[in-house]
């Protein structure tokens, strides 16, 4: 399943990634402060809806989002 990782200390809380995600998986929770004293956004995806489309990462000015997709194991 694809998923993303938000690098908390790189995130500047600009919120541009929030409207970019078609599945509304990124939220401005203000749950923690980062090293810069800013609120990083949070990825919340309990149902595993992320498609790995990368739209959030493309709009992020601070390269604070990594996108991962599970390696498909070749069946024997």
């Amino acid at each position, binding site marked *: 399943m694809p998923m993303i990782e938000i690098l908390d200390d790189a995130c*500047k809380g600009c919120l*541009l990634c929030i409207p970019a995600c078609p599945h509304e998986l990124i939220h401005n929770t203000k749950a923690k402060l980062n090293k810069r004293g800013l609120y990083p956004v949070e990825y919340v995806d309990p149902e595993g809806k992320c498609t*790995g489309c990368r739209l959030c990462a493309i709009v992020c*000015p*601070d390269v604070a989002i990594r*996108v*991962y997709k599970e390696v498909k194991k070749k069946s024997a």
Partner: protein
Amino acid sequence: MDTVTLEGTEYNVLAKRPESLTDKPFTYCPGCNHGTTHKIIAEVIDELDIQHRCIGIASVGCSVFSYEFFDFDFISVPHGRALAVATGAKRMRPNAVLMTYQGDGDLAAIGTAETIHACNRGERVTCIFVNNAIYGMTGGQMAPTTLLGMKTTTSPLGRDATRIGWPIKMSEMLSPLPGAAYIARVSMHDAKHILKAKAAIKKAFRAQLEDKGFSMVEVLSNCNVNWHMTPEDAVKFVKEKMTENFPLGVYKDVWEEEKAAKQPKKEEG
């Protein structure tokens, strides 16, 4: 593709920091598209595998520290002089890939003469021109690209054409010059346009690699801080107002012209 193992599962990495950027965090304000522009340039340089040949020219403006962020050689130059220095470097090192990174105050005000002549001479250099319609670094003064009606610290009542003229259109101005190989105007207001911008930047570097002439990509960008907007509103302003005043598109494409010249002329009638 890179892979990582997280909690016992192996993943392909679909998006990460490009190799041509250092690990230094950008010093730009939250939501500033200088960062996005750096990122796509670095991705293009990685994809073309030219990092080891690149020499960047850092101009003066908010991007004055760009030499800290790109992981290749850089020359830091006085305000407006980037294309003159790039000319010298390219002539001494013809195998190097030269990139200037310039704001609108830098390229379209103090550096106008350098810009026009580098283009007219067809210098084999690639210019990334970040048009945010303002002098960002110095606190939000009016630039030649400032839109009509836009309030800045030096046009507090809004830019008025009868007194201070119109927003200057560099892509339209430069594209008729014979030295221009590739000139395009792109925008950074959403993911689709950022990908288009990346494709244009790649073509601009290709123009240099294929020795076609001067290439420039004008990137419509934001300055949410000096525009006194949230990043989201600033992006909306780019989408609605900047693109209306500065139409997006390819203004010069040497490959298209070469193709057209090769087509047999259709007979009349």
